[in-house]
């Protein structure tokens, strides 16, 4: 029977080789993955702001489209992404902010777009999430994101914030997802933080 020392050396050697192979794979694909992630983010800003995107736009053109159509404007401490179809000096059509927070399993990141007067939501997208597929993962689906359109960002009492889940009918409430209450609560919390931060800077 082979000894313990051999077992240890074998395990160490195998571990090292596997780690090296994966390090090589990760560093080789890193620039491609980074480019994909950037394109994904650009696409999400555009979708949240409801900027028309031609079908099957290649990743590189998405970045160009974003740089053309969307301006980054600092409002106090909050970076906003402003869409004005008529050019930089024309009246803006929508304002988006980035939001992020802890999801159930991993960070959730996305964009929330509102009208320039900051009264209603125009669109919402999530570009990073690892929620449970089929339950919390449904937040990225069209049917859920569409319920947010035209949602008021203030309650009847005028306080900024929205409600995701059950409750009385209110202009600032949308239905949550059955089986994904934890995800919905977390999304509600991070959206409200984002909304408060932008309302404060106005």
């Amino acid at each position, binding site marked *: 029977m082979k000894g313990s020392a051999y077992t240890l050396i*074998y395990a160490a050697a*195998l571990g090292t080789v*596997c780690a090296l192979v994966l390090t090589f794979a990760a560093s080789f*694909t890193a620039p491609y993955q980074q480019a994909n992630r950037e394109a994904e983010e650009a696409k999400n800003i555009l979708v949240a702001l409801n900027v028309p995107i031609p079908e099957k736009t290649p990743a590189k053109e998405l970045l160009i489209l974003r740089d053309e159509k969307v301006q980054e404007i600092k409002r106090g401490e909050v970076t906003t992404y402003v869409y004005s179809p008529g050019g930089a000096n024309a009246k803006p059509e929508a304002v988006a902010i980035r939001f992020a927070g802890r999801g159930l399993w991993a960070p959730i990141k996305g964009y929330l777009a509102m009208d320039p007067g900051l009264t209603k939501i125009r669109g919402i997208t999530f570009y990073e999430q690892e929620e449970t*597929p089929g339950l919390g993962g449904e937040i990225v689906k069209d049917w859920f994101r569409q319920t947010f359109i035209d949602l008021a960002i203030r309650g009847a009492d005028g306080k900024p914030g929205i409600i995701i889940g059950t409750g009385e009918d209110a202009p600032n409430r949308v239905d949550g997802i059955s089986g994904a209450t934890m995800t919905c609560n977390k999304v509600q919390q991070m959206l409200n933080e984002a909304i408060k931060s932008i309302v404060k800077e106005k």
Partner: protein
Amino acid sequence: MAENKQSACVTCQPAGLCGGKGLLTLKDGAWRNNPLAIQVLGICSALAVTSRLENSLVMGAALIFVCVGSNLIVSLLRKRTPHRIRMIAEVAIIATFVIFFDQFLKAFYWDMSKQLGPYVGLIITNCIVMGRAEAFALQNPPIVSMVDGLANGIGYAVVLAIIGFFRELLGTGEIFGHQVLSSQWYTPNQLMILAPGAFFALGIVIGIFNALKGPEPQEKK
């Protein structure tokens, strides 16, 4: 059975690669002992990713790659691997192949990688891969182990493709995203896209495979 084995040897031996077991191994993995339809292993991913044919094919390709690669390495190392840590060694090798494939998808097939989500990573825990490494590659030389990995990968991929084909066709009326069944006379059956549809489809496929294969030969008492 004995006859069967001999004829397989005759066809394969001129190639001189598989130790005379190649064809038999191939047939066994892909058909007689099909990992999904006969052994009913690894159905978690089979149910999860088969809502579209394209996803099913990519997932099948991933499993073939992982199964062939891990069987080869496990078999090459089989005489050097200490018995006590063999399983952990197998998992490390399998995980390396899976993560490699996952990184590749993320870099070059971003949309596909997003659709498959966590299921590529979950191949690490797929019982087919581990099962083949443990049951076959540990006892057999490298080339025939690769054939075994290929056979089981194909067995998995074919069943996935069949399920994916019917789920996409009946669930959306499309194949590869192209409209096949006209919406004028076919109303897509949403059930096929949802989880229960996968169970029904898999159940029917298992039934058909078993019916075609015929009953197990009775053991002589």
